[in-house]
């Protein structure tokens, strides 16, 4: 599927580097306490994602991937982070994120997850002859790390950030691991992400009206006893 290897050689190198970067950012988010920084990191992830997509577009010269790269850049790297910062200010959310699990333990769990992801994706990457060997593992690791972050955070916004980070991981898988999903699908995914984000915004304001706080424990009332 990849005929011009000479392009691939350095291309793949950069791609792998980007993947590593993505993973690193995921870890950083896991370790991060302050919400604003968290959002910045999210933005960086978006940027990395966009670059990766663009790179693949360049390598495999699939023209529509350019489009999706631009979309990613606009949506994930710029729009969403900006709006999130705005929200933070508008809703006057305290800067700190209190984690359920303390940071070192979380990081430890994260490392275990990464190892697990790699071991899981080992046979797959052996199977696939494409440049993308190993990408699946990193993508999976990123997704799982985001998941872990959602589990360990107490603030609604930080959960949303985790959710978006997971989305990034998925997107990375979609683009770099499989060298681009069908266009409609990507469009659909992007669309959903957008709507979802809008709805989130609506939510936040509703939440503030009802509880005037963004803390999750207001959302832990419904239970069986």
């Amino acid at each position, binding site marked *: 599927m990849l005929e011009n290897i000479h392009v691939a050689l350095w291309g793949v190198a950069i791609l792998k580097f980007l993947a590593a970067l993505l993973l690193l950012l995921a870890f950083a988010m896991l370790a991060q306490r302050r919400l604003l920084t968290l959002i910045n990191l999210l933005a960086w992830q978006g940027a990395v994602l966009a670059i990766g997509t663009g790179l693949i577009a360049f390598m495999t010269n699939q023209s529509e991937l350019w489009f999706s790269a631009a979309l990613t850049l606009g949506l994930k790297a710029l729009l969403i982070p900006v709006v999130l910062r705005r929200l933070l200010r508008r809703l006057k959310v305290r800067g700190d994120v209190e984690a359920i699990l303390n940071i070192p333990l979380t990081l430890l769990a994260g490392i275990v997850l990464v190892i697990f992801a790699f071991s*899981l994706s080992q046979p797959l990457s052996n199977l696939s002859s494409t440049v993308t060997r190993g990408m699946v593992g990193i993508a999976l690791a990123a997704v799982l790390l985001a*998941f872990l972050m959602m*589990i360990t*955070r107490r603030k609604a916004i930080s959960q949303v950030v985790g959710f978006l980070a997971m989305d990034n991981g998925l997107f990375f898988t979609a683009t770099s691991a499989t060298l681009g999903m069908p266009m409609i699908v990507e469009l659909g995914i992007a669309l959903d992400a957008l709507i979802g984000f809008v709805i989130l915004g609506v939510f936040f304001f509703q939440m503030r009206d009802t509880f005037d706080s963004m803390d999750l424990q207001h959302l*832990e009332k419904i239970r069986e006893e």
Partner: protein
Amino acid sequence: MNPLPLNLALLALLLWLTLGIGGFALAGWSRIVSRLIFLVTALNGLLLTMAGFLALQSTPDLFKIGGPIPVFPWSFRLDPLSGFFLILLGLLAAAVSIFSGSYFQSLPVPALRRLMLQYHSFLVGMGLVLLADNAFTFLVAWEVMALASYFLVVTEHEEPGNQRAGFLYLLIAHLGALAILLGFTILAGPMILQGGAFSAMLHSTLSPFWASAAFLLTFFGFAAKAGLLPVHIWLPEAHPVAPAPVSALMSGAMLQMAFYGMLRVDFLFLHQEATWWGLFILIIGLASALFGVLFAAAQTDMKRLLAYSSMENMGLIMVALGLALVFHSYGLNALAALALMAALYHALNHAFFKGLLFLGSGSVLHATGTVSMSRLGGLIRSMPQTAFFMLIGVLAIAGLPPLNGFVSEWLLLQAFLLSPALPQGTLSAVLPLAASGVVLTLALSAYAIIKFYGIVFLGQAREILHPHESGIWERSAMALLALLCVTLGFIPGIVINLLHPVLHELIGQSLAPQTGIWLTPISAQRASYSPLLFILGMILALGLSVFLVSRFFGRPLRRVKVWSCGFPLHNSNMQDSPAGFTQPLLRIFAPVYQAQRAPAADPKQWVLQIGEPTYRLVYRPLGRAALWISGQMLRLQQGRITTYLLYSFLTLLILLAVWR
């Protein structure tokens, strides 16, 4: 192949259904309509009986119509066995419907509407159970029967007690149905996918293990309906709260549906029995009989008492069935036939006298507005005819000659006395003990039923309730049932000859044909009983003594105030209260009853509370266990979204890890 009986039966059922719908539609118009409909229903019952009689003679015929899935047909068949129970159902339904006509006329229209529909669908359900020829049809009919009777039980649904009764009833019925379904599935094997035609289950050759599994499952399922220990609890709850005619049908006919199922499965489907099955049924039956009769004697509510006595009678039938199975498993078919005849005969008897008694208590309820025995008394003076018919029922159920109850009792004891023929030594030695257990049951049942009659109809009225004699329709219904009891008592030979085809179908052999007025199941030397001669001698002696005494010493009677050892003051509270009548039993069998005294509303009084031991021993612990588990389950849903996320996270990781 004679298509007539089956078509007749199906026609009758169809007619019942239409009557139900018609009743639903027309109930509003006027009492007459519903009355008329009930009369037609009764006649229709006779039609069904006729179909049953024809079925006893003719070879069975098959009838299929396309079911929900083409491979799942609704299929019906009418063989002598079904025929016998159709006769039972038809006759009882006829009498009960005559009764219902006037019993329900005071019902408000909407209630009557619903009742017409439910009553008739109940009858139809029972009929279909008897006609069903594959597992699917059978189970649907079975559930319809359960549902309809459930709705009838909760007719007066204001009282929470009734709801509890209804719930217990439907729950146990449902579990029973599931068990039956499993049993049929095992029996039919792959054929179940074609709806499990009964013909496919005939003489099914299963491995001993699976055969026993099928036996136990089906037995549990049917026992749940028959009200045997320990799944009987619904029975004393449901019978009292249902309207009297319904209780009559449930007790008289519906319980027998379970017996029918057992007969079909144990004799026709499970061809090669293990001996312990018979013993198992026998022991359960005996236990239920003793338990039932003891608690019947302790009740103070007429219908509860009758309900427990139904349990006792089912127990006796089970004893006979078990004995028959034991004999059958040793190939002693002649003896099996005798025991089975006893069972069938008792089923028939029970349908009639228990129906009679329930109808009677319905009349009492109408006349006095209560069925609590501690408020009744001396009704024989205000409703003499009802009292007379009830007396016949009472004598019959007490198993006294020359009425029908005695015949089945006699046959059963004869069967027991034949147990030495068994090759297995200890078994043949132990069985007579069971016989004396049966005798004890019968004696105690006499105790219970005498209490029933004596307290309610004899003595002084315990409260002023201004009772009145029941209506002509009600009385004629009771008369019909009483007549049936007497007939079954007087001409057992003829009845037994009629039932031969059933025995032939079940065990390929029957009793020797009975000749004339004599009832000699085995041989004249062995044992003989002639109710006709008996009653003749009785009447002769009676007439003679009356004649002579009045001829020679016939001074007119003088009416005086009751003497009672010359006590100056004497009021109705000085006679036995229903609880007092049972007091000796309560004392002797105290461990069984676990009776507790509780202060009554009136500080001068105590009430005696007698609980169901099975609740304490079986059901409460079960319920507690279930609630505990559910308490643990609820912890899953403890509200924190992060925890929920953790669940799915862990699920994912575990699945991935396991797959690797």
